[in-house]
């Protein structure tokens, strides 16, 4: 369990963290999700001890580590740009933490081989980081962080520097790895899809504060506020209220609560169809419908239609409370 209580951190006038409290359960994979400047990386670095909070405390597995330097926190940290030791072989990179701890040589060898097997880099022992691809480097960095058997694994935008395809592969791979190794993991990301895909819990951060903590489903179905709602997926605004584009219904006939609109562009995206609409006296909105529905309506640019929401936006806080 990682418990951060009342952590604040300012850089001049800018509040990177503003009285943040969060509990991360043992063995879980928790994502810190937010836009850049939201404080998610600062929070992770405070947990690691790479940043010192101005106030507040950090407790890892019952031990108050607030004043303990990163060297003695027994954590694993993975950086966005890998932070590979360029002058060392893959073997020496992974062995680094154990070498520092003066483990017996035979034990180090065995553990390095085991870890490289786990991360899919068996046989790469003698290569240098410059001879690896980005994805391979990041997997090496993960093996290096895991080698010291850390109490918690902290990942700072670990896939941010990789191209989309590799990113998706590594994401799935990380989830499988976590299911095998079960080390308490905190992942920083600005990509909501990544957060929803891999994590058990998501903490959404904005302007140095935690907006909401919950499971991916919780957050999507019961966002605490407009910020969480719009950050977790596409939204449209109708009559001043935020709704998901797939909750917008396009009809030919006017209804009780409907708003007249003009069809703009109709984009066929495979299974789904996105309809851009100009509603009278409102901002332009995008509605999302299925291919069948779009065919049935036979929408054309310039036609007059009516818009309504199928269900009222769910902004109930009752069931989407904080963790723990």
């Amino acid at each position: 369990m990682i418990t951060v209580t009342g952590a604040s951190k300012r850089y001049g006038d800018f509040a990177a963290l503003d009285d943040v409290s969060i509990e991360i359960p043992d063995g879980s994979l928790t994502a810190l999700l937010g836009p850049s400047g939201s404080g998610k990386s600062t929070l992770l670095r405070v947990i690691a001890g790479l940043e010192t909070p101005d106030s507040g405390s950090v407790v890892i597995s019952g031990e108050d580590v607030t004043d303990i330097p990163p060297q003695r926190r027994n954590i694993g940290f993975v950086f966005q740009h890998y932070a590979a030791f360029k002058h060392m072989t893959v073997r020496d990179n992974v062995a680094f933490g154990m070498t520092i701890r003066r483990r017996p040589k035979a034990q180090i060898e065995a553990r390095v081989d085991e870890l490289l097997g786990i991360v899919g880099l068996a046989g790469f022992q003698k290569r240098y980081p410059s001879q690896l691809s980005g994805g391979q480097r990041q997997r090496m960095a993960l093996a290096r962080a895991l080698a010291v058997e850390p109490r918690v694994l902290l990942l700072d935008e670990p896939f941010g520097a990789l191209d989309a395809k590799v990113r998706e592969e590594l994401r799935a791979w990380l989830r499988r790895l976590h299911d095998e190794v079960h080390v308490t993991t905190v992942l920083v990301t600005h990509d909501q899809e990544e957060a929803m895909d891999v994590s058990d819990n998501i903490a959404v951060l904005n302007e140095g504060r935690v907006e909401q903590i919950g499971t991916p489903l919780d957050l999507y179905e019961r966002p605490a506020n407009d910020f969480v709602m719009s950050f977790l997926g596409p939204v449209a605004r109708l009559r001043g209220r935020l709704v998901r584009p797939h909750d917008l219904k396009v009809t030919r006939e006017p209804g009780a609560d409907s708003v007249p609109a003009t069809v703009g562009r109709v984009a066929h995206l495979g299974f789904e169809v996105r309809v851009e609409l100009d509603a009278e006296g409102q901002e332009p909105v995008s509605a999302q419908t299925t291919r069948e529905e779009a065919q049935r309506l036979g929408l054309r640019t310039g036609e007059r239609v009516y818009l309504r929401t199928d269900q009222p936006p769910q902004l109930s806080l009752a069931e989407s409370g904080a963790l723990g």
Partner: protein
Amino acid sequence: MTVGTRSRLTLRTLALSYLFVLVLVPLGMILYRTFEHGLVAFWESITTPAAISAISMSLTIVAIVVPLNVCFGVVTALALARGRFPGRGIVQAIVDLPFAISPVIVGVSLLLLWGVNGWFGGLADAGFQVIFSLPGMVLATLFVTLPFVVREVEPVLHEIGDEQEQAAATLGASRWQTFWRITLPAIRWGLAYGIVLTVARALGEFGAVTVVAGGVPGQSQTLTLLVHSRYIDDQNTFGAYAAATTLMGLALVTLLLMTVLNRKREAA
């Protein structure tokens, strides 16, 4: 911009002739003059007591100046690249000062400070001679070579960033372990290049050293000063050529090292 074959050839010829006339011809003349009486005459000229003393004096200065500037240079570069402290800009400017100031001024200021009438002039009466002896020459050389290590190491530190150092810290390495195992290997080629530049400058320094050395043959004379005094004071032109060739030999070794290191540094 594309350059035609003809103009490219013309440009090349111009550049090569420039180098030839300005660099190769004068150096070639010295080599020719040095060896025109054969190797034996050359050998005898550079093994006189004064010459041997000058060679060892030059090498001694290098041997003292290089380690001092390596320590100072690495610490300063680390402070400038990693630290955020008030007065950083001033330190940057001070490090560059030796580039800007004429070496003669350095020599004169050392005289003012350490000379008989200077602030620390009393030390000479106490038996610790600075001016007209090795300590003064070391001080002068230290001053003029001060920027090289800092200026070669600092950009490398900026380029590698501090993530590797942070990663080492999270893996349990102390600051000292991080420096030896991560930082130093990462800056090694930049540092080596800075050392080579320091050696080259220390061997060749004339202006600052000549003011504080007094040029007593066999006592406070570097190889560079020997070339000058043989030529001007002793009218011993052949001796001057021989000493100059020896100096060039040392410089050539340094230059070769520089080229090799530069390649390594760029490859790293």
